Structure formats: C-alpha cells, structure tokens
C-alpha cells in the first residue's frame, strides 16, 4: 500500500507542537528571514530590470574599459545571489536548525514513548485475557 498522507495521526501531537513557544519562535524567525531575503533579492533584481528598461543612459555609462554599468550591475546580480544564498544558509544553520532539531527530536521521543506504552498495554491486555480465560 502506498501511504496516504492523510492517515490520521495521534490527535494533538502536532497541535501541541504548533503551540509550543519554541515553535512560535522558529516560525517567527523563518518568516523574518524569508521576508528579508525576498525583499532583498526581488527588490534588487527589479531595480536592475527597471534600470535596464528605463535608465538606458545610466546603464550605458562606461565603468572601466569596455565594461559599462549594465554589465557591471548584471555581474553584481550574480555576486549578490551567491552572497545571499551563503548568508541565508549561515543564518539557517545558526538560528533555525538547532531549534527545529530540538523540536523534532522531542516529537520523535514522544512518539517512541507512546509506542512503547501501547506495546506494554497490549501485552498487559493479552496477559489479563489469558489469566481470565
């Protein structure tokens, strides 16, 4: 059987995590990071596009040799992409990963505990049935 992604989970498991204050912190950090990144790269990209479309004289200005502003800014788009990807990854490693690992480990431990308890209960029921019978 292919797993159905809608198979019911233990009720409340995710809801409890969703209301954990550490999860709120993780969510807030991610949203701030995402907003900053999107604003930075889309803003800078569309500035470049707008300059290419409407500020042709500025783009034609020579920077050095035959390299003009258009080429310089174009290559800077590459540099900024590399830098933003690197900064994003560094922030995520420091500020997001430890928090999400902590939450995930706890959830997995709870899951394991629950499975263990279920096993014990099943065993107890089996024994009770057996002694009663």
């Amino acid at each position, binding site marked *: *059987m*292919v*797993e*159905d*992604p*809608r*198979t019911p*989970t233990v009720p409340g498991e*995710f*809801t409890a*995590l*969703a209301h954990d204050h550490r*999860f709120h912190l*993780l*969510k807030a950090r*991610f*949203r701030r990071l*995402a907003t900053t*990144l*999107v604003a930075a*790269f*889309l803003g800078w*990209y*569309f500035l*470049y*596009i*707008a300059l*290419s*479309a*409407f500020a*042709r004289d500025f*783009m*034609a200005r020579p920077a*050095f*040799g*035959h*390299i*003009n502003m*258009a*080429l310089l800014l*174009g*290559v800077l*788009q*590459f540099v900024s*992409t*590399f830098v*933003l*990807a*690197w900064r*994003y*990854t560094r922030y*995520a490693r420091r500020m*997001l*990963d430890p928090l*999400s690992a902590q*939450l*995930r480990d706890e*959830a*997995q431990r709870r899951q394991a505990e629950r499975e263990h308890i279920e096993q014990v209960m099943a065993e107890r029921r089996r024994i009770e049935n057996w002694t009663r019978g």
Partner: protein
Amino acid sequence: MPGDGRFLTFGLFLVFILITLGITIWARANTRNADDFYAGGRAFSGPQNGLALAGDYMSAASFLGIAGIIALSGYDGFLYSIGFLVAWLLTLLLVELMRNAGRFTMADVLSYRARRQPRVRTAAAVSTVTVSVFYLLAQMVGAGALVSLLLGIHPGQSFLGLSAGAAKVLTIIIVGLMMVFYVTYGGMKGTTWVQIIKAVLLMAGTLVLTVLVLARFGFNLSDMLGAAAKASGRAADFLQPGLKYGREIEGDPLRTLINKLDFISLAVALVLGTAGLPHIVSRFFTVPDARAARTSVNWAIGLVGVFYLMTLALGFGATAVVGQAAIAAQDPAGNTAALQLAYTLGEFAGGPIGGDILLAFVGAVAFATILAVVSGLVLASSTSLAHDYFGHVLMFGRPRESQEVAVARFSAFLVGALAVVLAVVARNLNVAFLVALAFAMAASANLPAIVLSLFWKRFNSTGVVAGIYGGLSGSLLLMALSPVVSGKVDPDTGASLSLLPAGIDFHLFPLENPGLVSIPFGFLCAVAGTLLSREQADQERYDELSVRALTGTGSHRAARRAGKRPSGR
C-alpha cells in the same frame, strides 16, 4: 560548418548513449519500490542532487539559445542568464519546507491540508503535465534542428542517406525513445545519474570554450567585449540593453512602452517560474532530509551561476571570433553560435582537425543536455500522472505500490509519445518562446498554490484549484492572443514573425510573455477562490503542515535497510 568531423560527432553521441544506457540498466536492477522509482530511494547526497538539479535546469535553450541571443543581439541575452539564476533564491527558501512536507510531488504539499483531495490532485497533475509538455516540445523541436545542423545536413544535402527533413524527424523519434527508456527503465535513479553526467559534461565543455575564447584576448574581458562590439558593427550599443528587448521605437511612445512592459513581463516570469517547475520540484525529494535538500540547492546555485556567467563569454566571444554574418547564415536565431565558436577555437588551436574535435565534443554535450532535460520532464509528468491522478484520484489514495509504479512507466510512454507527435508536427516552427511560456505558466499556476498552501492559514481546496486553473488558463489564453501566435509581421519584408502565417491576426494582447498579467491573475484567483467559497480551512492540518514543514517531524526519509518502509507517519 565543416564536413568530416560529423562522424566524430556521431561517434561521441553513440558513446554517451551507450554509457547512459548502461547506467539505466544498472538503475533498473536497483529500483524496487515507489521510493526508488519516484525519488531515487532518497539516497542521493546534497552535492549529487545539486549537480542533478543543475543538469535538469540548464537546458539546451540556455546553453545554445542564450549564447545565440548574446551573439546576435548583444547584452539583452544576458537578461535570461540573470533571471534564470536569481530565481534560485526563491527555490532555496521553499526547498526545505517542500522537502519536509511532501513525498514525491508538488501535489503532496498542496493536498496536505486540502479537504477536497481529488480535485487538488487533479489540478496539480493537469498543471504539471501542461507545463512539462510545453517545455518538452521546445526542447525536442530544438533537438531536431540541432542534430541536423551538427551532422551538417542542409536542405538538399544528405548524411548516411538522410535528407535534412528526414534527419529532423528521425532525431525527434530517437530522442523520444531514449527519454522514455531512461524514465521507464531507470526511474529517478537512472535519470539522476544521466543529469549528473550531463551537468559535468556541460560545465566542462563550457569551461573549455570560455578559457579558450578568453585566451584569445589575453584574458582581458574588456578587450573581448570591445572586439565583439566592433565586430557587431553596432559599437557600444551592442553592450547595452535595448537591442532585442524593450526596444525604443522613435516617434512611437506607445510601442516603446509595450516593448518595455514585455521585457519586464519576461523578467518576472523568469524569476518566479523556477520554484514552480515540476521537474525541479520533484528533485527536492531525492535526498535524505531537508538539510541535504538545502545543500543541493546551494550547489545548484553555484553551478548554475558559474555556467550562466560563462554564457557571457560564449556569446560575446562568438560575435568577436566567428562574426555575426557567419552565425546568422547558419541559423537566423543564432542557436549554432556556441558550436561555431567551438569549431573556430579548435581550429585556432589545432587546425581543421582541432576544430572538428572540439565541435564534436561540444555537439555531443549539447545532445546530452537535450536528452537529460527531456527525461527530467517526462519523469516529472509521469510521476504526477501516476502518483497524483492514478494513485490519489482514481484509486482514492489506496493503490498497490507496484501498480502505481507500473502506471508511472506507462504514463512515461504516453507523455513521450505525445511529445514526439507534437514535436514532429511543429518541427519547422520557431517554438523557442515556449521555454519562457513554461516559466510563466509555472509561476502563474504553481507558485501561488505552493506559497499560499505553506503560509496562508485560510487557504483552502477551492483556492488551490482556482489558482491553478486560473493561472494556467490565463497564461495559455494570453499567449494564444499574443503576437507570438498571430499578427506579428516583419515591417520590411511583410513576412510573418508569428506562429501562424501572415494575414491571420487575432492578437488582442500586446505582450509576448503573459507573466506580468497572468502571475498576479493566478494569485488573485487563488485568493478569490478561497474567500468566495464557504469551505472552512482545516486548522489542525494547517498546524500539522507548518510543524512538519519547519521542523521535519514525520517527514519521509530514506529507508535505512532494504525492504524497510520509509519512516513516514
């Protein structure tokens, strides 16, 4: 282009085909379950998947097409390079969330919190197949043209008894057979290795050309640009934006504005499309966890960035070294610029034999590029048809796994056959615009659904369905009414520059790329669909989705031992 190197070209094609066939057969032996077939067992490392992502992404359209646009129209071709790269930052943001929340396809993420599973799945499958088939068509028509050029067959000539027309049809059929074979036989494992080899070959080929062409100018970029500007006969204008996109028409401010809006529309579609391309999304699931997925996107950004920087050297280098007249004589669209550059550079280094060798190598790289990209597209479509449509709509989410994989193999055959038929019909049309259209469709239909599913609490099934169908039909309709289909006429000769012959004109929408209108329209449909329906969003599932996406709790992981089911929920 010269003559006898084509046997060498042909030989290198065969070597590539044989190696990849071997890998595919190996992959077949190691593909046991759905995880293997759809996601390569989730066992690829970050760097491996990064190479494969880059391999899936860098199409022949970007290798040959961008070099050609730069060679003939100068700076404007560089816009594509920039848009294609910057787009990856959006992908970087979404990759971990999607990897954590999904299993094999985009629809897994979209349907996670949707109350009406089948409708959402169907919409996602329709969109996946539509976007992929348009993209596929562009690649396959390009392959036909490329191979007949590489084998040096011009109208009236022949190679091994084939005329140019027959060679085109034959190439399209062979490419179709190969891609269907890679996918049905090798699944994600085989396809990923094909992508990795192709990415390495493409980077190597581009690097060799870049070094050789820069060496001609003493590694002075400025000198090369100067020589290109001089050779183009348009002096400094050649190095500035405006020769091809956003052209300023003297005395016609309306036309000028339309041209500029068209340019912006293309730029928007390029930067927002990547994160919604189905064949890119399906690659997020081939790694063990979200961190590896992030690493793979970082690798892809590095590779794709270096590659697109080099297209600058290829394009301007071709103008400076080969000359525009020679390029336009081979192919008016400039698609052979990189190949001609290879021949010329090889000739400088080692006479006609050197030219033949380098041309054969770069030609084989281009062929490998086409084969790899088309297989990625076929795999993404067949995965979606089997997993989303067959598995979750027809079989109500309860198919047998082996049954679903068999359906995936059969779907690959269907999609491949459809693409071959369409490509043979369209083989003499100029379908290069389809690549930009595929990006616009991905951004209009898929991106709103993905972003709102992950971040908007109230978003519901109706919103997903409305967003996907709205964005998809909006971009298709605008394209049908645009000048690429009808009504664009060469002002000097009166010949048609559109898909349809001159004289037919129903273009009501002035822009050639629909993105500027269709992407906001897709978002609008998604939001309106949500707000206008009475369906309540499933709050609990939304909490689950956000916990799962951000922390990776309960995400699908690689099975540790053979036979063990993935530790999903």
